[in-house]
C-alpha cells in the first residue's frame, strides 16, 4: 500500500489542489500557493538532496566493491564529492573562498573544455553529413550554410549584409511555422500525459517498470 497506493493518492490529491488553485483568485488561495512554494517545497528539495547523495554513494560504492570496469573513477567521484562538500561546509562558499576557487579553477574550465570539443565534432560531422544527396538534403545544406554565415560578422561582410537578413527570415518564417506545429503537438501530448499521471493510468514514475 505504501509503495503504490499512497504515492498515487498523493499525486492525485495534490494535482487536483493545484489545478483548482490556479483558477481561484481569492486571498486564501494565493496565500496557500505562496506558503507551498516558499516554505514547503524548499523542505522537500532538501530531502531530495539527501536522496541524491545516498543514491550517488550507493551506486559508486557498489561499483567499487564489485571492482567492475572503471571502478577507480568511482573513487575519484566519491572523494571529489566529499572533499568539495567538506571544503564548502567548513571553509565557506563566499567570493574568494577555497570552494569558489576550486569551482572556478577546476570545475569551470573542465566543463568548458568538454563543451568546446563539440565544435570539433560538429565541424567534422557537418562536413560529412551536409552532402547534396537528395532535394531535402540540399535544402538542409543551403539553410545550414546561410545560417552559419548569418551568425558571424564575416558573413555580412562577404554578402553585403544579406546573410543576416536571410538568416533572420529563415528563423522567423520557415523555422517558426514548423516549431509552432511541433509545439502544439507536444503541448497536447503533455496535457494528455499529465492527465494520465493524475488519474494513475501512467505509473512509470513509481518505478518498477509498471
Amino acid at each position: 500500500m505504501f509503495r503504490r497506493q499512497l504515492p498515487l493518492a498523493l499525486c492525485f490529491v495534490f494535482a487536483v489542489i493545484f489545478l483548482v488553485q490556479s483558477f481561484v483568485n481569492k486571498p486564501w488561495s494565493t496565500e496557500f500557493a505562496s506558503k507551498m512554494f516558499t516554505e514547503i517545497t524548499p523542505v522537500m528539495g532538501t530531502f531530495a538532496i539527501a536522496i541524491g547523495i545516498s543514491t550517488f554513494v550507493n551506486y559508486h560504492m557498489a561499483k567499487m566493491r564489485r571492482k567492475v570496469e572503471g571502478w577507480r573513477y568511482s573513487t575519484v567521484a566519491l572523494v571529489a564529492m566529499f572533499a568539495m562538500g567538506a571544503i564548502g561546509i567548513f571553509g565557506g562558499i563566499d567570493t574568494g573562498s577555497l570552494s569558489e576557487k576550486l569551482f572556478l579553477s577546476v570545475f569551470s574550465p573542465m566543463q568548458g573544455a568538454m563543451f568546446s570539443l563539440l565544435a570539433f565534432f560538429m565541424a567534422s560531422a557537418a562536413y560529412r553529413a551536409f552532402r547534396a544527396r537528395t532535394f531535402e538534403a540540399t535544402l538542409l545544406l543551403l539553410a545550414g550554410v546561410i545560417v552559419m554565415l548569418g551568425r558571424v560578422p564575416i558573413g555580412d561582410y562577404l554578402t553585403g549584409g544579406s546573410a543576416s537578413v536571410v538568416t533572420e527570415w529563415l528563423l522567423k518564417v520557415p523555422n517558426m511555422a514548423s516549431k509552432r506545429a511541433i509545439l502544439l503537438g507536444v503541448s497536447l501530448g503533455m496535457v494528455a500525459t499529465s492527465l494520465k499521471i493524475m488519474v494513475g493510468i501512467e505509473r512509470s514514475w513509481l518505478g518498477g517498470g509498471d
Partner: protein
Amino acid sequence: MGFIRWCLNVDRRVIYLLLAATIGLGMCVDWKMTMSISPPVRSLYDHIDKLKEGSTVVLSVDYDPGSEAELQPMLMAVLRHCMKKKIKVIGVANVMTGTSLGADAFKAVAKEYNAKDEEDYVYLGFVYAPIILGLGEDIVATFPLDFAQKPTKDMPIFKKVKNLKDVSLAISFASNAMPDAWIMQAYTRYGCRVAAGVTAVQAAEYYPNLDTGQLVGLINGLKGAAEYETLVNKPERAMRGMNPQSAAHVVIIAFIVLGNIAYFVTGRKKTGGAAQSAGH
C-alpha cells in the same frame, strides 16, 4: 583525381587541426567588422532603454560553466545597460553550478558603475525551491539570505519590491529550457514581462514565443552578445570572440563546399564518406 578523392574523405584529424589553427589565428587577429543588430536583440535593448530610472529587473543565471563562454558576456552586457540606466537589478540562479558565475558578473559590473549592494542591486544566488514561483509570491521569503549570506529582510532594494508583480522585466540567461518555465510561470501566472538570452543552438526554439510577445526580446548566442555589447558601446569578450567564430564558420563552410564538389565530380558514387560519418 587524387585531390578530389582526398576531399571526399578528409581524415577527421586534419579537420580538427585546421579548425584549431584557424580559431587560434582568429584570436590573434584584431579585425574590426561591422556588427549588424538583429531585431530580437534590438527589441530587448529598446525595452530596457525605455524603463524608468529605479525600475527593477530580475536577471536569472540559468546556465553552467559549459555555456559560460556564450552566456556570461550577454549577462554582463545587459547588467552594464541596467546599471548605466540606474535600473535596480535582482540576480538569481536557477542552476546551482552557475551560481558563482553570476556572483562574479554582478561583482565585476557593479564595481565598474559604483553600484551599491543591497540598494542598487542584490545577488541572491540559488535555493532548493521552485525559484520562479517563489519570486512570484514573495522574494524575501524565498531568499531569506542573499548569496553572501546577509539577511534580505531589511535590504533597501526590497522596500518597494515584494514579488514579480513589482518587477518590470525578468531575463533568463539559459543553456536549458528555463526560458519556457519563465514564460509559463513569471509571464502567464504573475504577468511579469520576460526576455531570454540563450545559446545559439537553442535560439530557433524561442522564435514562436518572440512572435507572440511572450518574450520581449531574445539574445541569440555569442553573436547576440556581441550585438548587445555594440549597443551598450562596450565591446568586450563577445566582440573578441567574433573573429575566431567567423574563422571557424568559414573553415566549416569551406569543407562542406569542398566535400560537395568532390561528391559531384566523382559522380555521386557511394564512398567511404558515409561509412566514416559514424565516427565523425
